[in-house]
């Protein structure tokens, strides 16, 4: 095994460990991540496999295929984060609005 393969596999396992313990607790996303990591490990051990898959879909190199997939994944993550951020903003707005409504001062009559 090449040193880079050992490093990559170790990092993949570390990421998997962190994600499973600290981040999402939803079964679906856990399974998705586990299969993604497993695929990662398989490709690290057998890099030619990516090239073969790439060829079968009409892409020249495995690296290129990975790059395309990476771009798509990044965009998906960006959109998900944007949506999440919006939802958070809406919650903050609601909280701030309630604070404002509760602290409202009506004009003093005959003041």
């Amino acid at each position: 095994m090449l040193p880079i393969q050992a490093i990559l596999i170790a990092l993949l396992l570390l990421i998997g460990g962190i994600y499973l313990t600290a981040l999402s607790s939803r079964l679906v996303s856990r399974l998705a991540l586990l299969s993604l990591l497993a695929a990662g490990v398989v490709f690290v051990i057998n890099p030619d496999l990516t090239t073969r898959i790439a060829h079968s879909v009409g892409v020249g190199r495995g690296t290129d295929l990975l790059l395309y997939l990476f771009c798509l994944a990044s965009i998906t993550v960006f959109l998900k984060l944007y949506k999440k951020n919006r939802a958070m903003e809406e919650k903050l707005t609601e909280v701030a609005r309630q604070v404002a409504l509760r602290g409202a001062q009506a004009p003093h009559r005959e003041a």
Partner: protein
Amino acid sequence: MEQPSPDCVQSRVFLVIPAYNEGRVLASTIRGLLPYGYSIVVVDDGSSDGTAAILKGLPVHYLRHPVNLGQGAALQTGMDYALAQGAEYILHFDADGQHPAEGIASLLAPVCRGECDVAVGSRFLDAENVKLIPRGRRILLRGAVVISGILTRLWLSDAHNGFRALSRAAAQKIRLRENGFAHATEFLDEVRGARLRLREVPVTIRYTDYSQAKGQPALNSVNILIDVLLRKVL
């Protein structure tokens, strides 16, 4: 000048004024409004210029967002409050005094007469008014009309006029979720979605040095457009 019909009682009319660091101008805007006898709701959008102190002694309803959220959010908060206070008619009014107080009655009139649910001011219905609009701004606003028309399918002469009058029923149906300036487009979307009757009323806008400096820089409109588009897509 057009007078609102008698069933449009002044105290039942609530002016919602969003204010973010408007300072002294806000106080003079409000003093100009007081003689008309409308209820005034100032929504301080997390200002850091002591807006509360400036308003001290003025007979207004004062609400404060603990953090700055944006004009759309402030308008919605003000509308929520006005509705809870029993408002029959709600107007959106600018803090910087660019909307003339005399224009309120003419904007309200068609809503009070029940001819429409929502009235929005337009700078483009009166040829004399159009001349008062700085050239660059005029071109920008014409462009905004086209974009807003495509997005909301409401073709108005002036898409981004913040001077609006709503009946109570209309205000209850409209919910602004767009905190920033994209709320102008969202507002029209909501009007259309709720099948409210909309009418444009000619108004004059005073372009003072203050409002010019404070107003939206032209480039910001690109930003707003992106907001609007993202909202449509997501």
